[in-house]
């Protein structure tokens, strides 16, 4: 897909299935196919946005990369190491490179620990600092995330949501990771605070050359922060492309519907554009539709779509889509390349 030596993370055909047990003897009667064959790669210093509705498997994908869930199948490469094949101790050491920031800044910090203890915990776990160095490093990290180092001995409840998220970011940065999975880091925050945190993410990426997997359901924020965007639906990636390409030229009918549902802060927009209103809800991932997963809600679906899963193919340079019905746009290639260089 990309030049291998600059690829940091490569995910190949990742599957995460959760078993369903029923009855007195807890027999397995089925499985929830939360992630069902996902492949992508992320280059060094790049931000890949992962979007989709709740239950589409975006969080499970993120957690599987950090090995918080054991994948059912597939490979996750960090540089050239397959994380799945690693034993416990080598994986533990590998976690220095791969960190995670969680959605809920209220639930992801231990209320009985001070900021110092929270941020110092990873340092202690890896023996990276002792004695006075610890406080110095914690204060340095607090400065990095624009928190006042004087607050080092405070508890999480003394901070606002945005400040708590900064503590979570400081903790993730403590080990100098190369790659961070950001799992909806701004969803729980107020609008004016969201912008502060997104700007912080961008500054840190420049300062520390970080690579992000940015998981979110807010498509406009994802467009802002990402270099490339992957759209998930029912456990699979249906479309993946450069950020401007996917918003200007969405090819999958699901991406089109999703983009059209984004609220736009402009009353005039609603007079000029009619929205695509998708019918119904997302089907259950325990029993996904046969063939194309989107066909039950797709306006273009016909018999062809029942036959089998469409191939995830590259229809334009760097633009991947999983759909039988993709019509290439009438716009010429020149227009596309011109837009991309802007």
């Amino acid at each position, binding site marked *: 897909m990309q030049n291998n030596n600059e690829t940091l993370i490569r995910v190949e055909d990742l599957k995460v299935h959760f078993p369903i047990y029923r009855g007195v003897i807890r027999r397995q009667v089925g499985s929830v196919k939360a992630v069902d064959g996902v492949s992508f790669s992320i280059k060094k210093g790049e931000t890949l946005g992962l979007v989709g*509705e709740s239950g589409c498997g975006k969080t499970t994908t993120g957690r599987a990369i950090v090995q918080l869930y054991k994948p059912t199948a597939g490979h996750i490469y960090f540089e050239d190491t397959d994380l799945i094949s690693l034993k416990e101790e080598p994986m533990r050491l590998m976690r220095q490179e791969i960190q995670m920031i969680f959605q809920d800044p209220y639930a992801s910090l231990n209320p009985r620990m001070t900021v110092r203890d929270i941020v110092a915990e990873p340092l202690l776990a890896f023996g990276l600092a002792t004695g006075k160095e610890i406080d110095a490093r914690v204060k340095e990290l607090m400065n990095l995330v624009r928190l006042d180092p004087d607050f080092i001995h405070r508890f999480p409840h003394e901070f606002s949501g945005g400040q708590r998220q900064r503590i979570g970011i400081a903790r993730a940065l403590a080990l100098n990771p190369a790659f961070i999975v950001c799992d909806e880091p701004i969803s729980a925050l107020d609008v004016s605070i969201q912008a502060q945190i997104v700007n912080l993410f961008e500054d840190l990426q420049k300062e520390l050359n970080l690579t992000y997997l940015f998981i979110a359901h807010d498509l406009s924020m994802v467009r802002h922060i990402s270099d490339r965007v992957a759209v998930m639906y029912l456990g699979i990636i249906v479309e993946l492309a450069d950020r401007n390409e996917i918003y200007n030229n969405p090819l999958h009918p699901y991406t089109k519907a999703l983009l059209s549902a984004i609220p736009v*802060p402009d009353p005039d927009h609603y007079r000029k554009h009619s929205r695509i209103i998708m019918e119904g809800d997302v089907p259950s991932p325990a029993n996904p539709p046969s063939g194309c997963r989107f066909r039950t809600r797709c306006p273009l679906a016909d018999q062809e779509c029942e036959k089998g899963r469409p191939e995830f193919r590259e229809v334009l340079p760097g633009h991947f889509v999983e759909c039988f019905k993709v019509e290439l746009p009438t716009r010429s290639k020149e227009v596309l390349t011109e837009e991309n260089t802007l």
Partner: protein
Amino acid sequence: MTSEILNVQGLETQFNTPEGVVHAVNGVDFKLNEGETLGIVGESGCGKSVSMLSILRLIQQPPGKIVAGNAMFKGQDLLQMSNDDIRRVRGGQISMIFQDPMTSLNPVMTIGKQLAEPLMLHLGFSQEQARNRSIELLEQVGIPRAADRLKDYPHQYSGGMRQRVMIAMALSCAPQILIADEPTTALDVTIQAQIVDLVIRLREEVGMAIIWITHDLGVVASIAHRVNVMYGGFVIEEALIDELYRRPSHPYTVGLLGSLPQIQAEGRKRLYSIDGMPPMLYKKPHSCPFAPRCKWVIEKCRMENPPLLPIEEGHRAACWVNIEDGSVRDAE
């Protein structure tokens, strides 16, 4: 012009907490016309929900207390009514839907029973009539196989369907005003679009006035006729929908709009961010509540809290500074 259906003046609500008195709403005035949709926009803690709950007297007293103000609904003050009278208004003439449809539905009661309850209570329907009307209502909000699904419990419905049930319940007694408190915040964007679309359709069919509380300036642009922006327990800007986006005149509104990423934007501009965070309301502010975060702040802002000052017809902002040319405004 259509006639006025609700007129709220000088509403003040406080809460007694162990840390002190929280001044949640500090003198809110607004009007609602028949058939009109008023958007109320603000971040958490700005007083948008508390002011609406106060009007319906749904805040717990104590610790809450409505300190001042009146809310005239069809010639009667909602804040002075007897408990029996306000109970007849709530759910009947004024109904409300909430953010989280799971916690606002009773988990151990079937959807059918919950839908029938207001019909039997407010309209005196028999059980049979209520059941038939419930089926009609579910069909109206787009629930397939409505008759079968009356027997289901809330957990058997998806989030979007639960919110549809809430809307069906709120509309069951043909209210004149529907208060919607962040009804789409807990939902996915595609479901949010479905719900907004549904409310717009029902608004035309039923003809009720709507107060739509939200923190999302995008959603409000799709549904409201007029918008009030709230901050620190005050309305700090009010305008017709087009004026607000064309000519935001309070620095906070400007900041909120600027902090949204533009979906149409090609390049990557740094997001405008408002520094600091919303105020704690332990003291009733005597200066502008936004002054500590404001780029345009002048000495006067720290001395005197600006009232709503006219910008143009139907558009007022509570700011001493004319942010278009930097001149200082005076109170009339």
